[in-house]
């Protein structure tokens, strides 16, 4: 994922955070498309608190507390992923895996608008 000048973490800080997350299972890194960054204080990536065995649903539950305006644009209030939003764990679209129950396993999550959406 390319770096973005709007990122609020330096490369060194990112490495530290990633290392800490891997060690403690404390955070998952989430990458955001430009159009969603207004709902994340301008950031292109977020660190979301999550347990080591977290699923995508767990991460989104945590995101709903941390950044509710962002979370509800990824899935609706019934917890269903919006139909024209794709969520990847590393390089895997969760629709091709276990959906929201897909294990994160310390990988990055990317939120990407589908080409079908508009």
């Amino acid at each position, binding site marked *: 994922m390319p770096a973005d000048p709007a990122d609020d973490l330096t490369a060194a800080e990112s490495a530290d955070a990633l290392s800490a997350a891997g060690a403690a299972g404390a955070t998952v890194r989430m990458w955001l498309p430009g159009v969603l960054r207004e709902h994340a204080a301008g950031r292109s990536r977020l660190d979301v608190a999550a347990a080591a065995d977290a699923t995508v649903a767990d991460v989104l539950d945590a995101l709903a507390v941390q950044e509710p305006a962002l979370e*509800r644009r990824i899935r609706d209030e019934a917890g269903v992923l919006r139909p024209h939003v794709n969520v990847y764990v590393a390089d895997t679209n969760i629709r091709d895996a276990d959906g929201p129950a897909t294990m994160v396993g310390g990988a990055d999550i990317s939120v990407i608008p589908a080409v079908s959406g508009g």
Partner: protein
Amino acid sequence: MSEVVLMIGTRKGLWLGRSSDRVQWDVTGPHLGMDEIYSCAIETRSETPRLLVSAASPHWGPSVLRSDDLGQSWQDTPQGAIRFPADTGTALAHVWALQPGPTDQPGVVYAGTEPSALWRSEDSGETFSLYRGLWDHPHREQWWPGAGGQAVHTVLPDPFDVARVTVAMSTGGVYRSTDSGQSWTPANKGIRADFLPGDEPEFGQCVHKVAMHRDRPEQLFAQNHGGVYRSDDGGGSWQSIADGLPGDFGFPIVVHPHRPGTVYVFPLVADADRVPPQARCRVYRSTDTGGSWEALTQGLPQEPFYLPVLRDAMCTDDADPAGIYFGTRDGAVYGSRDDGDSWAEITRHLPDVLCVRAGTVA
């Protein structure tokens, strides 16, 4: 100096018109970019006018947004202004109606949604609560979506009785409550449902829009999916007022802001032929509660015209003489500043117009 604000909601964004004379319009947009603007409202009861819109992103879902600076900036409710409670097992698809409450209920805004539900805000649109009585109605499983979706598209609170509210949906028809929304009774007696077999049903009609004048809440006007009707008893029964119209199909119906018996429609040929009769762009006006109709054409396109006007794409302002406005699916908006006697194009080449609303601001 006061001016009229015209909100134009389209398939891809919102445009805002402002005019002090309703001749020269300053139209700006698109605001809210790619969002579908399903409904909009101008809240003029507060000292600072508030614009409300339902903005639905094809990717990121629906939101109710508000602006207290006439569209220069927009505020969102982080968790979402309208959220279906978890036990409903459903989610908001679209907000089809945003309706400010009566003047003596500041801060009250009603919303009608897809799936069919009624909501009430008491903080000027920042948060809404679900009316459980309508949501839990035993008829719900027999309401079916029209082409646009299963939605409450009309909300008419009674200006003189806070306990009385009328809603309309496609399909389902008209329902009314006299106990502050706790219970709801279908109010469709006399309205056709040609798309159903058998006798006229108690409910299930595809009522496209219902209008009411705030000074005469017992009198309702309905543009049906086939049929134009008036009720003089708050929806207890309906009589056809389609005689004199070139077609009884259509979507919008609006009432003059200062003359309760004056009503406007934009007729289409029929369900199976949803274009204006004779391919002519004509608004029809009745000044006698639907007893007779006259075609209004001065200033409207005179060439062949094949465009419908959607149910919320016609409105009035609150000025006197009244402004009447409508938008078309080819993105043109026309306005009249003399009760409909003459018209002029306000703007063109927008995305298809889903809704228009107008109001006077200081």
